[in-house]
């Protein structure tokens, strides 16, 4: 018995992983630039426009500044855990990008390469599980800082994340009842052939959107890092690149969550109002893949803009209002959504008889 190692497959997956990870990092970098520009434009001023044309080299300057700062590790903190916190946050943020379908397929070297790192059958469940692990990064960071304010911030962040995960899961169940599959690629394929899921599940989308805001610790739910309330929250004691990793992992999380939302509800890489099969015959596989990836990124950019738009409009929630919303409003609403969806599916199967 001998093993034949399929080197081409390994190389192909490695290249795909490297490309996806670099793309997430670059998009996270430029979403810091976009955040400052969008904030400025909404506040009647210009954003950074000195570092390079339109301030496009500003993220490099920010990264350079963070690298050059002094690395402070507090004396009484737990050393290993202190460094582990931001690493965990970044790890879980990146791991979710493994199951997102970035396009259909590319044809190189006589092989059809799928533009998705792995197409597991339990796509959405994997995403969900990894996002839940993101709590660990914050909790460990807050605990290892040996600072009561950090601990309070970490407690609040952890309770907020786990409260809103429930509503997110229940809203997803209603969606799964309609599509019947957990795999993200199959879901996108259904939306390419049919209509987008947002038409079938508007209330589910709304609940999912609110929960994604809470998962990313994004205003109006950004209690955990509210500077004027908690003196910095769980990243009080962090400096230099560890702080950079925390801030970056928030943006990578935002990027990946937008990608997941687009795949679930807005058709993934589908081009609206265009028949994809016809276009495929005209243009060829590789160009089609490029158009698809471009379309997906355009939708993700719209969602990122939406995140920033909401951040600079709404004041943040108080902690008890946040918990109230999560447990007493969103979970009943998600359950109601699930029941109504189930009822409509049963009616549909029964040909609209009771």
């Amino acid at each position, binding site marked *: 018995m001998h093993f034949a190692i399929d080197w081409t497959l390994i190389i192909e997956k490695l290249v795909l992983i490297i490309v996806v990870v670099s793309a997430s990092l670059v998009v996270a970098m430029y979403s810091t630039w976009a955040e400052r520009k969008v904030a400025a434009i909404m506040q009647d001023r210009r954003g950074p426009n000195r570092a390079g044309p339109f301030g496009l080299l500003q993220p490099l300057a920010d990264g350079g500044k963070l690298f050059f700062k002094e690395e402070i590790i507090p004396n009484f903190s737990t050393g290993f855990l202190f460094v582990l916190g931001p690493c965990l946050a970044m790890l879980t943020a990146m791991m979710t990008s493994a199951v997102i379908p970035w396009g259909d397929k590319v044809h190189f070297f006589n092989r059809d390469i799928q533009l998705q790192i792995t197409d597991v059958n339990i796509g959405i469940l994997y995403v969900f599980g990894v996002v839940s692990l993101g709590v660990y990064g914050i909790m460990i960071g807050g605990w290892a800082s040996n600072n009561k304010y950090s601990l309070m911030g970490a407690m609040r962040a952890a309770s907020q994340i786990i409260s809103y995960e429930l509503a997110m899961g229940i809203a997803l169940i209603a969606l799964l009842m309609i599509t019947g599959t957990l795999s993200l690629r199959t879901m996108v394929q259904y939306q390419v052939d049919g209509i987008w899921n947002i038409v079938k599940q508007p209330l589910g989308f709304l609940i999912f959107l609110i929960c994604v805001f809470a998962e990313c610790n994004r205003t109006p739910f950004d209690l955990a890092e509210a500077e004027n309330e908690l003196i910095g929250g769980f990243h009080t004691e962090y400096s230099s690149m560890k702080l950079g990793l925390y801030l970056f992992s928030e943006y990578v999380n935002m990027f990946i969550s937008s990608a997941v939302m687009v795949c679930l509800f807005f058709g993934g890489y589908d081009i609206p109002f265009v028949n994809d099969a016809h276009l495929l015959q005209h243009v060829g596989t590789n160009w089609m893949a490029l158009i698809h990836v471009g379309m997906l990124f355009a939708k993700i950019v719209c969602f990122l803009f939406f995140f920033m738009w909401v951040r*600079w*409009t709404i004041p943040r929630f108080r902690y008890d209002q946040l918990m109230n919303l999560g447990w007493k409003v969103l979970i009943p609403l998600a359950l109601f959504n699930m029941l109504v969806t189930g009822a409509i599916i049963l009616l549909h199967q029964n040909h609209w008889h009771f």
Partner: protein
Amino acid sequence: MQALTNRALPVDRKPMTFMEKIYLPAIMKGMSITFGHMFKKRPTINYPEKTRPFSPVFRGLHILNRDEEGRENCTACGLCAVSCPAEAITMEGAERKPGEENLYREEKYAAKYEINMLRCIFCGLCEEACPKDAIYLSETFAPSNYQRKGFIYSKDDLLIPNPITEPEAYAKAKGNRANKTNN
């Protein structure tokens, strides 16, 4: 107890209406306002390509004046140093030698004249105190520097260019300042 004025309004403690409780209509209204602000004109000025205009009486950097024949006006009388509330001006006087009549107006002149820009508060009292119209405050402000000693301006930095030998530089440095009508 009785209120002193009747300006105090009672706090509105009505419970939230349904539309207010679901937060979403208010959020939509706020977001449309923010979106509208994206298309309004911004009041930011792109410094240093464009600068805001200063008024003609703006108190900026000091300039030591000369008269029309190119002779320095300053006689090192010390009135500006005495009137300076921040003690920023120091000077040393010297006697005019017989061959230097075209350089200085009167027999005494300032051999060393220094103003410490870090101490100066740009109040303009030295300009008001000078009897010879020798010092006035112009429209520029002090550029930044890396060391303290770069801020101690000597007579060469402060003197206006000679109108006889460098007329364009003199005209540019004079600017559009209004002329003093005494002396």
